[in-house]
């Protein structure tokens, strides 16, 4: 993680680092129990009253449910200062919240990736903006 005070998420309301740990910004429906990510991606159980949706943070750690290795650079608006290809994309499961979230796999030997391995959520610098801020996304790395 870089200089926290100088970091900005490329899209707001997705990733939080204010607690000292990097955590994804989810919402939970207290009526049907479903977790959503992003928060506005409501996916209520049919018939749910939809009452009592509250903002929550997902745990910092989860386990790897699936992964791929990207060998091509995606088209814009994907943007990194330095090429990261090839890079991993993981689907990380947060067991208690019953949700899996996709994210770039960083700081992890691609050859060592295995299904079920423990992953932690981190920030990943994509590029520096005109205000000299580090623009970041969320990413996952193997727990060391």
């Amino acid at each position, binding site marked *: 993680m870089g200089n926290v005070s100088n970091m900005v998420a490329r899209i707001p309301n997705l990733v939080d680092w204010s607690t000292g740990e990097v955590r994804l910004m989810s919402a939970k429906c207290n009526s049907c129990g479903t977790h959503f990510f992003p928060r506005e991606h409501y996916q209520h159980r049919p018939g749910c009253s939809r009452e009592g949706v509250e903002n929550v943070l997902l745990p910092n750690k989860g386990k790897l449910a699936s992964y791929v290795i990207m060998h091509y650079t995606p088209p814009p608006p994907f*943007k990194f200062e330095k090429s990261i290809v090839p890079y991993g994309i993981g689907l990380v499961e947060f067991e208690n919240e019953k949700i899996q979230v996709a994210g770039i796999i960083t700081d992890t030997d691609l050859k060592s990736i295995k299904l079920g391995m423990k992953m932690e959520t981190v920030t990943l610098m994509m590029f520096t903006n005109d205000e000299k801020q580090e623009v970041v996304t969320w990413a996952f790395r193997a727990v060391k």
Partner: protein
Amino acid sequence: MRDVYIIGTGIHPWLIRSEQVFTNFGTVAIDNAMKDAGIEWKQIQAIMAGIFIWGGNAGHLSGQYQESVFGETGVPVINIYNACATGTAALQMAYNSVASGQTDTALAYGADVSPKGFFSAKTDNAVQDRDVIRWKMVGMPNPVFWALECRKRMAKYGTTEKDLALVKVVMSEYGSKNPDAVFKKVYTVEEVLASAYVVDPLRLYMICPVSTGAAAAIVTADKKLISKADKPVKINAVTMGSAMYGDPTIRIGVVSCPAVPEAPLLSESYSASHQAYAKAGIGPEDVDYFELPDNSSWHYLVYLECCGFCKEGEADKMLRDGETRIDGRVPTNLSGGFSSHGEAVAAQAIWQVIECANQLRGRCGVRQVKNPKVAMAQTYGLMGNSGTTIISI
């Protein structure tokens, strides 16, 4: 509801890419469909148009721009978008219009000129279009979603890279025999496995490219038109499905999915196909010919299961045992599939139905299945939408 028949079909053959105007492709497809049906433009009482999403205003009002080419007649024109299932939605609208008696004869069509390379974001506004999140924050072109599901499948059912390659081998064998296919080279397992990874575990030849083309179908309940048509095919069911709560699929356009399944994988396609079986009063065992959406090798395998042609995890064996070949239990994608044509989003679902109709009408030459009576076309669809068409002769 009245019985509705497809009396004419037409395509503009698929191309890798073209700078031509999409309506020019539509014109060719519709002209061919009218000739096949033996009708004139003025006999069409409704136009159900698949939207061309990269075409701006003209693309979003595709039907209006297309109508003016043939001459505006004031008939209802409805423009429809349901991703890969766009064509099925157009066909369903045409079917409903005719079956309900609102019109006697209707046209369903789609024309598309895909942009080059990976499809990408359509806006820059992540607030209104959450699809932007996957592009900006993760870098997830559509094949990433397929590869994530494919990896899960390989771990769960033991699908091998060789199985994934075999899909392309079989598709290329039939594609090579289809005069309208774009890609006619026949591949071996070794050649497929030697192609570069795009998104490991999926290699270049395990993913369908983007493409360009148009497809049109004319449906009618007019007994005179049906009686003079060349082998009209009856529409037994044309259904649309959406996703079901708890579907564990990581769905294109979304960066999360449920961890605990409470619905089938690809629930939108499960829904569309099982609605179609119920409406047609048949089961998968009654289907003599099947077109499925082979956007990737993973799709080919999972759709055999999703539509009930085998149990979950058994499609690899079905493929290996030759059950999907021309002389197998469920001849599948003898067109060569998207693998041999590429995706032309607005047009491809109607093209799938046309391939089915061609089999029922005995028009497939060396790819012809022996005396098929019932055929089924199944689509995929971004963000939880899908369509199924069952036709018979």
